[in-house]
């Protein structure tokens, strides 16, 4: 497996699994406007996933399509960060997750626009505008919930805290990103991410979380116990009809 293939899968799996979770809010959001907004965000994430997985298939050169990669890989072959697979929890937890993830994606795609790999640069160029909206949407909610009522403040603080131990993984560097010219080394984004996220959290009147422990493993296919259930749902119909077209 080439570095470029693995790197592209990491990005694609992040987007795919994030989309799967975001879509769980549709028809369950706190208000109709939010069903629409989260529908948009999920669609953006899914669109990014499709472009990236399709490209991963091309890079691999074994004839696998976006669907082969999404529906016919096993749990340990998915390379998304664990943050993306966590259950949504309440709306505050979901907005904390989106703030952390979209801010990361935004910084990443900004850099990736000048990747030496033209396809990745192209995907990033389109996606960067989308995720700027995601960041904005999450920011607005973190502010409203953090500085809303006593209950919403407590929930927002809990959400920020609960997702925090899954953020370091987004910025973990490794040999692959260091040697792959087309890649962005995510460790170079962490400082600016922290600055931006802190600014939002401060403005929301919440406190910036701390954590003695940071989870890791997603980039090597080690996931949380939640992930297997997500995959079972995602893949069951496709796996039940191997070879079928839809």
């Amino acid at each position, binding site marked *: 497996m080439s570095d470029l293939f693995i790197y592209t899968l990491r990005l694609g799996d992040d987007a795919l699994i994030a989309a799967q979770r975001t879509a769980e809010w549709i028809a369950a*959001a*706190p208000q109709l406007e*939010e069903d629409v907004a989260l529908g948009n965000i999920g669609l953006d994430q899914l*669109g990014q996933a499709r472009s990236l997985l399709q490209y991963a298939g091309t890079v691999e050169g074994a004839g696998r399509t976006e669907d082969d990669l999404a529906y016919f890989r096993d749990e340990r072959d998915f390379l998304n960060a664990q943050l993306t697979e966590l259950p949504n929890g309440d709306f505050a937890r979901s907005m904390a997750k989106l703030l952390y993830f979209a801010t990361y994606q935004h910084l990443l795609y900004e850099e990736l626009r000048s990747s030496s790999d033209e396809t990745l640069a192209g995907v990033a160029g389109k996606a960067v505008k989308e995720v700027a909206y995601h960041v904005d949407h999450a920011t607005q909610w973190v502010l409203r919930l953090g500085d809303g009522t006593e*209950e919403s403040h407590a929930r927002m603080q809990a959400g920020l805290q609960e997702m925090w131990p899954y953020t370091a993984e987004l910025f973990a560097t490794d040999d692959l990103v260091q040697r792959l010219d087309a890649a962005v080394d995510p460790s170079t984004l962490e400082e600016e991410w922290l600055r931006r996220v802190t600014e939002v959290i401060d403005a929301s009147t919440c406190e910036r979380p701390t954590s003695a422990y940071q989870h890791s493993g997603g980039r090597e296919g080690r996931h949380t116990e939640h992930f297997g259930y997500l995959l079972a749902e995602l893949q069951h119909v496709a796996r039940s*009809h191997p070879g*079928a077209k*839809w």
Partner: protein
Amino acid sequence: MDSFQATIDADGRIEPRDAMPEGYRKTLIRQIAQHAHSEIIGMQPEGNWISRAPSLRRKAILMAKVQDEAGHGLYLYAAAETLGVDRADLLDMLHEGRQKYSSIFNYPTLTWADIGAIGWLVDGAAIVNQVPLCRCSYGPYARAMVRVCKEESFHQRQGFEILHTLCNGTDAQKAMAQDALNRWWWPSLMMFGPPDASSTHSEQSMAWGIKRHSNDELRQRFVDMTVPQADVLGIRVPDDGLTYDEQTGHYSFTQPDFTELYEVVKGNGPCNQERLAHRVKAHEDGAWVREAAAAYAAKQALKKETAA
């Protein structure tokens, strides 16, 4: 009121600021609200398959469709609000069971083929019902319907395309498509409401230009449109009495069992309880979020004021 009748007679549009009979206003509120409620309840049976859609392309199309339904809900509630009611109050009426939504959404989606069948048959029936509403006498409703119908005809084609793929797929896929048609055919026919002979409200609504065609006319139109499409798919409409009349150019068909429709309307359908419970739960779970948004907005307004 003379000007109201004159506008109706001239096939003109009534606008929010215009005088209108109380009965007209109430009928419209009821109808538009029911329509809006149907859009948002209708998100559930299809939303049920987003996480399990068997290809990423279909997943994206389905997400976009369900999102469109939320959008339709938004314009329709906005159209109802032009008649002097609040969306929040209409939602309360839905949640308390005091206003209805389309009974079709009280049937479960059991396989992926149901997503195709809903697009093809349910959106198809909705379009037949709604296209005439684009010429409804109440302007905001008519304009909302133009937008809704445009998107729904897109959804209808997507549904047909799902089934078309299944019907040209494996035996299991084709069986799935046939099974979906078997289950959704009769409920779809019921979407046009009771037979004209027993339909209430209809006459006055016709006179007011809210309704343009009778239930039975629209049902016929739907059957005439749909049967040839089933032939193209190569699946069989589950009606032994279906025949084509060369002379009239119409199909004759068996009427659905309307006692089932009345039961489902009364609350006795397979998913009535789940649909309402899901909706109420989403609303209640979201209460603290809406309160927080309101509290934040009030704080921001106060800050602006004191700064000014």
